[in-house]
Each structure stands twice: as structure tokens, then as C-alpha cells.
């Protein structure tokens, strides 16, 4: 039975990930709880940016993980294309919405940070511009999955797109950096400020841990859902085939 091979591995994955899930959820809540406590209550405001620097506690993890998730997606896509591992494209598909949400958060919080800091809601600096482009890459990837009726075709097309995007991302970043220095030679704006005071590092690290656990938790949930969906599709195909094979009762 062709379906057996596809589900032999997922059963083990589902078992292990289901066991990990509660721990990861607890860790996530713990990281966020501690991070928010220290970030909002128990850390000093920046001597230059005042309390607006607290936005960094959500902006920086979101921005760095937005790129991180893309790397995960690209690696999973490569594994899917080269080794045809059945879970690899499930992992890639499940990561994309998380990466897109992180990217959107990075953009919105970046704008909210930019207005009090630089006096403008949006600034075409290299980092924000690259994040905006990455959002489009995520949306295109998710759109491609939806465009195909055949799930297997969608998986391979999306994998190709993810890899093409991954290969192009450094080129895009480089050219946006170049473009940025061409047009804004005066000030070099670093989104995390001139230096990060050590007192701010701990809440930042805690929030970072929270975001990372969030990614793991939601990834597992979404992967489980994909596996369930494919079982449903397999069952429905099976039912359709048996119904077609069995002669109708009079």
C-alpha cells in the first residue's frame, strides 16, 4: 500500500512531538512571563530613547526569528526535494505562517519604534526594507501552496520557490544595503540603537527564548494538523475508490 510509507515515519514524529509539546508550552509561558516582567517592570529605560526602547523586547526577537524561520523553511525544502522525506515539506509548509506573523510583527513594532525614535513611521533603512521584502517572499510561498489542487505538486513547487528565495535573499539584502548607503550616506541607523545596555540583555534573551518556544509549539501543532489532513485525504480517496469498486446495491 503506497500510503503506508508516507505514514510510517509520521507516527513516531507525532508520538515524540506530542510528548514534548506540554514542556515546550510551559517553557514558552515561562519565558514570556519572565521576559515581560523584566522587560516592562524591572529594567531601566534607555537614557536616550526612554521607555520606547521596551518595544525592542518584541521587535528584535521577531525580526531575527523572521529570518531564522525562513532558514528552517529553506532547509526543510531542501530535504524535501533531495531526500523526499515525507515530513520535510510538512515542516516547511507549517513554518511559513509563523515566519510571516513574525515578519509582520517586526514591521509593525519597527514602525511604532521608529516614530518616537526617528520621527517617522516608516524609514527605508536596509533592515526594515529587507524585512518587508521577506514578508512578500513568505506570502508568495504560502500563496503557491494554495494554488495547486494536487498537494504533492504544491509541495515540490513550494520547495523550489523556497530555495530560489533563500538563494536570492542574501543578494537582495546586499543590494538593499548598497541602495541604502547610496541614498542615506549621512546617518547609519542601527535598529537596536548604538549599544545594548547589559541590563537590557536579560529581558531580551528571555523574550527571545519565548519567541523560539512559540515557534516550536505552533510548528508542532501545525504539523500535527497537516498529518491529520493528509490522513483524511487518504481515507477519502480510499472510500471513493472502494465505493467505485463495489457494485451498487439494488
Amino acid at each position, binding site marked *: 500500500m503506497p500510503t503506508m510509507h508516507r505514514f510510517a515515519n509520521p507516527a513516531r514524529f507525532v508520538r515524540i512531538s506530542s510528548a514534548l509539546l506540554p514542556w515546550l508550552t510551559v517553557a514558552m509561558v515561562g519565558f514570556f512571563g519572565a521576559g515581560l516582567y523584566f522587560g516592562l517592570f524591572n529594567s531601566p529605560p534607555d537614557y536616550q530613547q526612554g521607555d520606547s526602547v521596551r518595544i525592542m523586547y518584541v521587535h528584535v526577537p521577531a525580526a531575527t526569528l523572521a529570518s531564522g524561520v525562513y532558514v528552517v523553511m529553506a532547509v526543510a525544502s531542501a530535504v524535501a526535494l533531495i531526500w523526499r522525506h515525507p515530513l520535510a515539506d510538512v515542516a516547511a509548509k507549517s513554518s511559513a505562517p509563523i515566519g510571516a506573523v513574525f515578519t509582520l510583527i517586526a514591521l509593525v513594532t519597527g514602525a511604532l519604534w521608529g516614530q518616537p525614535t526617528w520621527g517617522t513611521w516608516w524609514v527605508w533603512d536596509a533592515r526594515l526594507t529587507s524585512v518587508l521584502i521577506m514578508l512578500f517572499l513568505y506570502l508568495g510561498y504560502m500563496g503557491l501552496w494554495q494554488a495547486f489542487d494536487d498537494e504533492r505538486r504544491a509541495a515540490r513547487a513550494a520547495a523550489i520557490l523556497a530555495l530560489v528565495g533563500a538563494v536570492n535573499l542574501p543578494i*537582495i539584502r546586499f543590494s538593499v544595503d548598497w541602495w541604502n548607503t547610496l541614498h542615506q550616506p549621512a546617518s547609519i541607523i542601527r535598529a537596536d540603537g548604538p549599544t545594548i545596555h547589559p541590563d537590557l540583555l536579560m529581558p531580551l534573551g528571555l523574550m527571545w527564548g519565548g519567541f523560539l518556544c512559540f515557534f516550536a509549539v505552533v510548528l508542532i501543532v501545525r504539523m500535527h494538523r497537516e498529518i491529520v489532513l493528509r490522513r483524511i485525504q487518504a481515507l477519502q480517496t480510499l472510500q471513493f475508490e472502494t465505493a467505485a469498486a463495489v457494485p451498487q446495491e439494488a
Partner: protein
Amino acid sequence: MLEFWALVRRDLLLARRQGSATTSVAVFFVLTVTLFPLGIGPESSLLARVAGGVIWVAALLATMLSLDRVYQSDFEDGSLDLIALGPLPLELVALAKTFAHWLVTGLLLVVLSPVLGILMQLDSAAFGTLVVAMALGTPALSLIGGIGAALTVSVKRGGVLLSLLILPLYIPVLIFGVGAVDAAADGITARPHLLMLGAILLFSLVLSPVASALALRLNLE
């Protein structure tokens, strides 16, 4: 090798029979650029400042709108299956078809670009660089766009999705293409930008046939 050129010739012949496709790309290019002075006003210095950007964005859009002609009609009438079964490796098929696409669209943009430079009051020093940059950039646009066309060939009404997929990938060509034109207009050397465009072109010459062939294979199964 013979089959490669035969395929290019075939695509060119088909394009000539559907003559309207070529002219409509040209008209779109000119029309889009014409919209900008109408939109932002006729003041020469303002137009000259944005000339590079406007011409390149129009070139990007014109290329993108014509991308479906690379594989779409052959896919629909089954010729693509026959070509894929033929002696030419799929990577060279992709290269041949994208080359033909460039000859029909991109080359036209290169030839038309000085005219558009005049419309946009581009600084006279930049005209030569504009043509060279276009000559380096438009093939890259056809190549990169070809990947998207191959990916979406089996998607019904995949045109908008194609744009969403390809436009972010076009950004480096846009940045360095405009950079070259602006540098020349400012009287400084455009060489680094042109070299980058050349590098992107060489890179796409390798990446595009490989990725397009992969995409075609999966869509033709």
C-alpha cells in the same frame, strides 16, 4: 546544439505570428512611463531625478506581464510535453525559451529605453549607460521570470501569483540598474553597478535553467 537553436527559432516564429504580443509589450512600456509625468507633473528636474527608477520599474512590469508566453500556450496545447520528451535536456529547453522571450520583449525594451530617457528628461550623460544596463538587466529579468513562469504553468490564472513570486526577486536588478543610470547622470562611474548587473546575469544563467527545469518536470508529471 542544433535543437537548441531550432527551439529558439520556433518560439520566435510563433511570436511573430502572434505579432500583437510584441507590440503590446512595447506600448505598455511607453505608456507606463508616460503616466508618470502626467502623474507627478512636467517639471524637468523632478522627472530627471526619478527617470532611472521609473524606466526600470516600467521595464520590470512589462517583462513580468509578458512572462506567461514562455510556457503557457505550449503547456495548454500539449506541445510542452512533446518538447520535454525530445532530445534537448529540459534545462536547455528552459534556456532556449527564455532566450526567445528576451529576444521578443527584453531586446525591445533595450532599444526603446533611449526614447523613454528623452520622455523622462534623463540627463544626456546617462543614455549610454541606460542602454548598457538594460542590455545586462533585461536578460536577467527574462531568466528569473522564467523560473516563476515554470512554477506556475499549471496553475489556472496564475498571473497575479506569478507577479507576487517574481517581483521580490527582481529587486536586485532594479537597484543596480537604477544605480547605474543615476551614477552616470551624476557624472560618476557606473562600473560597479554594471559589474553587479553582469554578475546577476551570470548567476541567473546558471540558476534559472536548473530551477525552471525542476519546476517544469514537476508540472509535467
